């Protein structure tokens, strides 16, 4: 168990550092390539959708939990859409989930 979390931290560190350091190492020679510009724009929203489903999917063990997850998720999305305050959306959304569950 202990070596697993150290392995995860090391991999997480290298993966994060790679995203921050690669432009400085390859000197941006591909920066203007249209495929990179395309991925730069559209990969982030696609990844966020995948992660929402990944994070909720591992929690939805039965139908009632699924419904509560859906309701809470809608609350977070609406709060964020109208107030644009991440801490508020996360805090209130989690509170709603915690009360319902």
């Amino acid at each position: 168990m202990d070596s697993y979390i150290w392995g995860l931290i090391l991999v997480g560190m290298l993966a994060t550092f790679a995203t921050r350091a690669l432009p400085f190492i390859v000197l941006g020679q591909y920066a203007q390539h249209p495929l990179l510009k395309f991925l730069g724009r559209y990969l982030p929203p696609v990844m966020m959708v995948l992660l929402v489903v990944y994070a909720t999917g591992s929690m939805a063990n039965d139908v009632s939990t699924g419904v509560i997850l859906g309701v809470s998720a809608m609350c977070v999305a609406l709060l964020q859409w109208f107030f644009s305050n991440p801490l508020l959306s996360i805090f209130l959304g989690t509170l709603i989930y915690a009360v319902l569950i």
Partner: protein
Amino acid sequence: MRQLLSITLPVALGYVPLGMAFGVLFVSQLDYAWYMASIMALLVFAGSAQFLAVGLLANQASLVEVGVAIFLLNARHLFYGLSLLSELQLRGWRRWYLIFALTDESYSLITSLKADVRKQQSLHWQIAAINQGYWVLGCTLGALLGVGVDIPTQGLEFVLPALFIVLCVEQYRVVRAKGLMLGAAAIASFSLWLWSQQMLILSILLSLSLLLITYRSGRWIATSGG
């Protein structure tokens, strides 16, 4: 120092509570020592990746899955570096530290400095270091709080999906890629149904294929204006 503190105050107000949420989540969801939360804040230093790491640790994800997921989650950083490339004159460890610690918030602070202040390059890595200080402080406080005080943690696991929903809404606001995001939702649901154990890797591969097909079809040019 006063200048640094006043520049970074908004980041402190965001990082300390968010770090605390991470710390509490870490100790309440996992069976690791509290200080592993601080070590993660020191070595990984990426907000959403650390929250995801809690989920990955709980699911005992493979290290390949961890590497791919965190790399792609942070892939937006690839494009921050590019825009700082030409002006970054720091050398040696200061340069590499700034690159290591170039979070969304440090990047936006540095790029929004007034031109005369922005010329002081030593400020850049100091801003990054102070911001990391806030983050480590928040994560550590949260982990200690989670261990020491018996706060009700039921439902706290929702912090992770809530964070990604917030990021999703913000991405939609900026990019408006409705078709691609719906496609990704369909792919993710399908992958979850087909192979829930390896859902993340499977849906990433399928989504990358979808992105490449969309790119090849050339249709994105018409919709990418703005």
